[in-house]
């Protein structure tokens, strides 16, 4: 993992142990000592977020929506149920809504107030999604933000921004790339990116 990028919204926790690392360790010891948390449960939680959820789940949903018109219809009508068909459900995915890009419409998801994000299908959000620059600019300058991700939208493509202010969680369904007619769902899923499902890029 490279650590040479601009350092402005997170801490890498490099050795020697930082003050925050020591304080977190102390709090964990206290909570364990008081019987408030089980350290093995903490490990299980970390494992869930590092190995069970992540953008590959959302990519399967998107690929199935591309390959199976009946599934796409169910997904657009009731995303929570359609996503659960693939086994993805739970915290921060209780009320899912799929929003589909078309040649004339592009969707972009943000949470201006905190960091709301669809955990079961995308995992935990990247730092930039939770950061002040994205939260402030996605609603007022979505096209400028997308341009920084390398996606320049023509003026005649409509941009729809979704600010996740309640417990609805949004998943962008990108357009199926041209020339992918022969691919099966697994091969299609490999084409789907996290940023494509947030909407900062088009596939």
């Amino acid at each position, binding site marked *: *993992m490279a650590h040479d990028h601009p350092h402005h919204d997170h801490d890498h*926790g490099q050795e020697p142990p930082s003050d925050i690392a020591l304080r977190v360790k102390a709090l964990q010891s206290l909570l364990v000592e008081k019987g408030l948390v089980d350290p093995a449960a903490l490990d299980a939680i970390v494992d869930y977020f590092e190995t069970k959820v992540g953008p590959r789940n959302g990519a399967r949903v998107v690929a199935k929506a591309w390959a199976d018109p009946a599934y796409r219809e169910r997904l657009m009508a009731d995303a929570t149920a359609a996503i659960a068909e693939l086994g993805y459900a739970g915290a921060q995915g209780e009320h899912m809504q799929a929003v589909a890009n078309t040649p004339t419409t592009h969707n972009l998801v943000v949470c201006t*107030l905190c960091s709301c994000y669809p955990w079961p299908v995308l995992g935990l959000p990247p730092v930039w999604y939770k950061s002040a620059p994205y939260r*402030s600019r996605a*609603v007022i300058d979505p096209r400028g933000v997308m341009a920084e991700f390398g996606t320049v939208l023509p003026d005649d493509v409509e*941009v729809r921004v979704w600010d996740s202010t309640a417990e609805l969680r949004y998943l962008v369904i990108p357009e199926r790339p041209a020339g992918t007619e022969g691919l099966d769902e697994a091969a299609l899923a490999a084409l789907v990116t996290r940023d494509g499902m947030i909407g900062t890029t088009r596939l």
Partner: protein
Amino acid sequence: MNGVHDMGGMHGLGPVAPEPGEPVFHADWERRVHAMVIASPTRGNIDAGRHQRELIAAADYLRMTYYEKWFEGLRQMLLKGEAVAPDELAAGVADPAAPKSTPRLAPEAVAPALSTSGSYLRKAAPPAFVAGDRVRALNLHPTGHTRLPRYVRGHVGVIERCHGAHVFPDSHAHGAGEDPHPLYTVRFTATDLWGPAANPRDSVSLDLWEPYLERA
């Protein structure tokens, strides 16, 4: 509350900086903070947890990293919930006289708890608005928790969809019960929110509870 957490439309907060190949967590202490927030006895009220982070002093909120804010919010929630005493938190040592608790989450319960969907949908009065209605976001400035961002207050939008009644964060965050109200997706045009410089085709949709809205 009109805090710095309500960032929509602000300028001057810098460029978006994607990190190629970003890991889920950048340090082990971030893993521990995230897991403690999920496992701790204060997890029952997600709205109160969000509000606790909003209460971090504005300058600190902007300076702190994401998981530093989660850590500070967790500490304050543990104190408020009386799960730990101030002396214990300061010393990092449990009061030997305090009764020992049983962890809320056992290791084998973690995956089922995280992957089973609850719901914020509740029974309440029928919705006052239907899709297509024009509504104005009220010019409200509550000092407590709200999910009505400043940038839509006073603006007129169109109801896209009603989602039934959901737990109302403005009440729930303050321990005043779930107080469910109808929740709507409301669409505002970009030019109405941001003026003539915005692309007239563009729009911003938010999920807003009925007490935030009036018929326009």
